[in-house]
């Protein structure tokens, strides 16, 4: 059964009822990430937030907005733009993804380089607990240390601790000008040098990405996006182009309409191609070792090479990215297992994968000494196990 809650109270009472009846509930926004996590064990009710889609407040003088969980980020940003502001997040499926889903998964994109992830921008939440109580934490001012910051606790919880009803975010002024420098590092040593040079420089890109359609090829595209006044963007582009490592990588400047189109292509490509999508992290300065390790692991599986290789898009300055893995489920499972064994990678999770793959290897991997803490948090906030249908990570 699908319930479309129209008010915070509706959402809370639907949860209260489910709790009383012992039903298992999953919360759904636009459904862009409905297949993430473990396959649900049993779903009695889907609680849909799409009707909770209002911007409750946009305090443009204070650079904050309070937004209901079901509002689509793109729609929100179209509205905030009228005041020259935005919520600077660009997660996958940003045209449809909802505020609640983005916060619950703490999902982000290239803009993370400058603005962080949703947990860095959220300043308050209204939650509906599994037993149907509405409660707030944080507030509507950016600077506030009163009480526990539960807006952070639900970030990354995948709807397993409470339902997000609405959230307040700090906003940013829309940049006046943006331009992007794209270069192609001919080999991994140059790539590593670019990462080190940019990180050690006083450049302040809003995005710093790397991308390779085929990790085995070693040629890696690097993208640096700058946003500021036109003169400042020009100066930064010039300074970046002057770095020896970038100079050696045929830098090209992209601006105007081409720029957003190129960024869309960058962000969407990995999702458009078939195969599993895996998220992994690494130390940014170790990128050459990391990519060689990836080549080694992928090279051991013939099925992966035959199926278009392994493509990567990553936040070069953060050390986090998405890896597309071809081949069959056995190849993919072995690949994930190898990544998890490698000391070059951390926090390897399956984002998109077939049921067969997810049956072979856990989506989340071992959580070590956090497991007990996860268990006690779950027990404290959702003792009857109403929420999330076992999709994890807790």
């Amino acid at each position, binding site marked *: 059964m699908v319930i479309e809650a129209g008010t915070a109270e509706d959402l809370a009472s639907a949860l209260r009822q489910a709790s009383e009846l012992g039903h298992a509930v999953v919360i759904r926004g636009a459904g862009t990430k409905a297949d993430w996590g473990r396959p649900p064990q049993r779903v009695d009710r889907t609680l849909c937030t799409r009707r909770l889609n209002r911007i409750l407040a946009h305090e443009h003088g204070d650079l904050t907005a309070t937004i209901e969980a079901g509002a689509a980020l793109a729609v929100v940003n179209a509205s905030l733009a009228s005041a020259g502001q935005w919520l600077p997040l660009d997660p996958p499926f940003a045209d449809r993804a909802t505020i609640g889903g983005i916060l619950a998964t703490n999902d982000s994109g290239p803009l993370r380089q400058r603005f962080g992830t949703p947990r860095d921008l959220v300043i308050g939440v209204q*939650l509906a607990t599994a037993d149907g109580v509405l409660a707030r934490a944080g507030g509507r001012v950016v600077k506030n*240390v009163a009480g526990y910051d539960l807006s952070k606790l639900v970030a990354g919880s995948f709807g397993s601790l409470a339902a997000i009803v609405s959230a307040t975010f700090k906003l940013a002024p829309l940049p006046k000008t943006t331009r992007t420098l794209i270069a192609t590092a001919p080999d991994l040593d140059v790539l590593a040098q670019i990462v080190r040079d940019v990180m050690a420089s006083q450049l302040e890109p809003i995005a710093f990405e790397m991308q390779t359609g085929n990790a085995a090829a070693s040629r890696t595209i690097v993208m640096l996006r700058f946003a500021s006044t036109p003169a400042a963007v020009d100066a930064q582009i010039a300074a970046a182009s002057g770095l020896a490592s970038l100079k050696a990588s045929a830098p090209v400047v992209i601006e105007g309409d081409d720029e957003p189109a190129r960024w869309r292509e960058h962000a969407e490509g990995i999702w458009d191609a078939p195969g599993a999508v895996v998220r992994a992290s690494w130390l*940014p300065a170790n990128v050459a070792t990391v990519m060689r390790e990836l080549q080694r692991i992928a090279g051991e599986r013939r099925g992966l090479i035959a199926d278009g290789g392994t493509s990567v898009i990553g936040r070069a300055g953060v050390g986090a990215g998405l890896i597309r893995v071809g081949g069959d489920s056995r190849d993919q499972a072995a690949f994930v297992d190898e990544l998890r064994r490698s000391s070059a990678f951390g926090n390897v999770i399956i984002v998109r994968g077939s049921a067969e793959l997810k049956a072979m290897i856990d989506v989340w991997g071992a959580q070590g000494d956090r497991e007990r803490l996860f268990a006690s948090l779950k027990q404290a906030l959702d003792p009857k196990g109403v929420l999330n249908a076992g999709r994890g990570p807790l």
Partner: protein
Amino acid sequence: MIDRAFLDDLRCIVGDDGVVTDPLELLTYECDALPHLRASPGAVVLPRSAADVQQIVRLCARAHVPFVPRGHGTGLSGGALPVAGGVVIALSRLNRVLDVDIPNQRVTVEPGVTNLEITRQVAPFGYYYAPDPSSQQVCSIGGNVAENSGGAHCLKYGFTTHHVLALDAVLANGDLVRIGGTFADTPGPDLIGLIVGSEGTLAVVTSITVRILRRPERVQTLLAAFDTIEAGGEVVSDIIGAGIIPAAVEMMDALAIRAAEAAVHPNFPQSDTVLIVELDGPSAEVEALFDIVEQTCRARGARSIEVARDEAQRARIWKGRKAAFAAMGRVSPNYYVQDGVVPRTRLPEVLNRIRQLEARSGLRIGNVFHAGDGNLHPLICYDERVPGEADRAVEVAAEILSYCIDAGGSLTGEHGIGADKSAYMPQMFSADDLALMQRVRAAFDPDGLCNPGKVFPTPRLCGEVPGPYREHPLEKAGVAERW
């Protein structure tokens, strides 16, 4: 609670020199920088390692003895107030810098390392640690984690929570848990975000990895004087409205200016209001935006604008600002500082209410605040020798906090709730809100032994009331300032 056998067990863990029970020595630990809230602990224990902390916590759990983690005691909300007869775990000996990783822009330290020490470690490489509470020379990074400390530059760079990458934390049952880690994106709820700012009520943190930032290419600072506080406030709105996020925007009113002048002679113009605006970033950007800031100040009728030409001049401007709190002693025998927050756009209205309250109460109120993020630090002047004045100062402070809540703000922007403001929490949060937070707390600390009596409202004990400021020994000794 604590008996001889318990103390012997503590000594077994940390050695004889790691346990303080002498009543005179215990005096040091009776309070933090909110000295009117005092309690005498049964023992202070000084661990040297995370393993020591684990054993101490396990011992406390077994004997059901409450324990209070303490950094360097510079907190302004009584967050490190001992439980009478309980244990204080003083983390000052956990003061090693464990790792400096410049290429990956991170530093790992133990909680007793001072905030400024992190910057000292990385400054030679052109980096710094961004959160800059005014006590940064002496405050511990562990305390910063507990309080989610900010500082003048958090308008652009955020608070402690935005800069912590990993924590090792000892839970109330003695388990040592790694939260966050070497790699980004630890799956699951953001436990770093929960623990940072939990005021030591969820765990005792034993190591902290923070990210460090590259020094910006350019820093520009100006000091502008205005005839009215409203004009200063309008400049702030105009700057933000123009899409500029300064590194810092600070305001001081006439009383605060006078006090600062008397104390450190920053040569501020004697006006109703001064505004300090600092921009940083790439040179071309700072230059372009700084012009707009200057024009804005002129358009709003600035009486004077001083642009810092060099580091020395910038340092003098900041000295005047940073000295403002302690300088209040020059114009008033006693003062009490609060830490409320209002939405930036409501500043003029709330400041007006404070002015009216000042006239009504008969107590002078100086205003020094982080104007960029609406964080007020009203300094309520009183004379404790005049019967009733200290109490009136407390009432005035409480009323100012209620204005902040009315305006949609917060009880505290950076000092924490601690023991000082826990009684006011129901003004900001409903019973359901607080109950949910308590459920989270119970998940970490079911027996309520980890820093009890903080954050959440409890029936207050006699004498346990929010109270006026008295100079901290560190301030008296001239090693710490506050703002």
